[in-house]
């Protein structure tokens, strides 16, 4: 039973991480309907910038964190401005291909600079965060992940609900021509959603780096796992992304714990295929009905 709970807790923490990663993905998809294949690479960039600042340059952790988030935010702007904006109005297939190209370019760049080894951060989390409950132990990183994740989910909830920028973003997601007619600057909203998504990516990259150590290959593999998560939850649903992330995370650790560790990496994709067979728009996705 202890084993069961330990696995459940590990699964929920990993799932929470997937949910955070999927959040940025859904944000881009909702506002500009771009499938971002460079998601894992954006996560890795955030994680590596934080590595350089916190561990190599030995800046204080809070400063490193803020600089990383600000840097990722501007990176999102730059990517949108230079790579995505020339393609506004082009076929969706070209935009998707562009993000694929972006993914391998960034991955190559990072492999070139940091190599394929596992790097790890200095240990900065206080030991008191570790949570004991009977014989079950929740490591401090998971508690920290949970806290940071909740804070950010709350912040984004407020941002989307009350700030004017967030309301613009929701309006563009809902109906682009109507938003444009009401005077929303759609291009700025696209740029904004990429910037925020890159920021969220950087954050989930850092958290992943704290838990597992950072390795380019591994982080980009996690980036691809957002696809099962968002397909399960529904491509355009933020709540679905969170629930989907938790389900996929738990499923993964249970498969790893009870069946085999090889299957663990594949089970999300098997779920993906099954979901596409029986409920293609996911748990909470908007069902698009097109009639001719």
């Amino acid at each position: 039973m202890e084993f069961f709970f330990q696995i459940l807790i590990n699964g929920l923490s990993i799932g929470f991480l997937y949910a955070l990663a999927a959040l940025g993905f859904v944000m881009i998809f909702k506002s500009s309907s771009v499938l971002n294949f460079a998601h894992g690479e954006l996560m890795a960039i955030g994680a590596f910038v934080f590595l350089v600042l916190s561990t190599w340059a030995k800046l204080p952790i809070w400063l490193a964190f803020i600089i990383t988030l600000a840097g990722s935010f501007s990176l999102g702007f730059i990517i949108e401005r230079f790579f995505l904006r020339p393609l506004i109005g082009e076929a969706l297939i070209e935009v998707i291909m562009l993000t694929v190209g972006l993914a391998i370019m960034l991955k190559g760049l990072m492999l070139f600079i940091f190599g394929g080894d596992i790097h790890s951060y200095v240990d900065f989390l206080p030991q008191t965060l570790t949570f004991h409950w009977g014989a079950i132990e929740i490591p401090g990183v998971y508690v920290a992940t949970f806290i940071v994740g909740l804070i950010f989910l709350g912040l984004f909830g407020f941002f989307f609900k009350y700030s004017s920028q967030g309301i613009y973003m929701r309006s563009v997601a809902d109906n682009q021509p109507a938003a444009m007619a009401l005077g929303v600057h759609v291009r700025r909203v696209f740029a904004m959603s990429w910037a925020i998504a890159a920021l969220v990516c950087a954050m989930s990259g850092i958290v992943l780096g704290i838990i597992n150590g950072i390795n380019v290959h591994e982080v980009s593999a996690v980036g691809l796992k957002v696809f099962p998560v968002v397909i399960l939850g529904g491509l355009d649903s933020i709540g679905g992304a969170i629930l989907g992330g938790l389900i996929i995370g738990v499923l993964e650790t249970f498969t790893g714990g009870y069946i085999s560790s090889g299957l663990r990496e594949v089970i999300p994709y098997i779920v993906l295929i099954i979901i596409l067979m029986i409920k293609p728009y996911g748990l909470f996705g908007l069902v698009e009905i097109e009639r001719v």
Partner: protein
Amino acid sequence: MRKLQFHPCGNFNETYEQELTIFETDYGRLSMLIGLILLFAVVPFISSAYILYIINIIGIYAIAAIGLNLLIGYTGQISLGHGAFFGVGAYSAAIFATKASFPFIIAVPLAGVITAIVGMFFGLPSARLKHLYLCIATLASQFILEYVFVQWEGLTGGAAGISIPSGSLFGIDLGSDRNFYYVIFFCFAVMTWMAVNLIRTRYGRAFIAIRDNDQAAEGMGIPIFQYKLLSFAISSFYAGFAGALFAYYMISITPEPFNLWLSIEYIAMIIIGGLGSIPGSVFGTVFIITLSEILSNITEFLMNISPSISGAITIAPLREFIYGLAIILFIIFEPKGLAEVWRIVRSSFRLWPFSY
């Protein structure tokens, strides 16, 4: 004999036959004939063993790239699992050759058919939906198939892979590069011919209609689901066929080459070559394989002049960076790829000195 026709200044199609024609001018037909003669009678005899090996690899990859272009470029459905389907072809050919000891001439097409069936299975859920779902489903199929290659040890030999006896065709041993060259390029010519003609049939035109506007296509009475699935099956058949040739050429196969990276390499080939262009797929394959060989030669050269930097510079990341950059630059500046560049260069020569 009638006079050779050259390109007119513009499109003057008066009949449907004119629009459907493959070679717009006799000059094109003539140059294809010369190209074929060069390919079969000159190239294998003048090139060194290393060059011949690269040309063979280009031929094999070009077959698979044409298949992917039929899917992405003509039907507008994105596949990120082409590398895995290539692997399915390689493994089925290897299994047919070792376990069932089928001859070469049966094992290769059969491997293509098996791959088409596997492809259709993965295409099944997603062909009902719009194209981004196929893209995600094929990404999943890539990971699932990779897992199967490694884990189904009874059939695939696990991580150790399978060794294949070198094939023979009509009593001729295909162990040597030059003999295999003829097989590859005969298959290449036939597959290209089939692809070019497929586009002219009602099926090909239906694919293009689906790419351009699926709702309008359905309105015109094209059953979209069947045609998407058909396109996916054809594309997988090409991948499997090429994979089978690859298995026979490489003699032994392991799961490593058939990863997501290979799928992305195929996508890079057709984007750089030109989406929706059969010659473009070939151009792109030549470009990518040559680029990768040049880069690995440069790395080798650098290693030779100073061993100290050999640890710092590794070939793979540099290659990934350049492929990614090439994909992005081509999409932004020349979405139609090298095929379009080639057309522009040709027409600027043709129209010189008055380029209008």
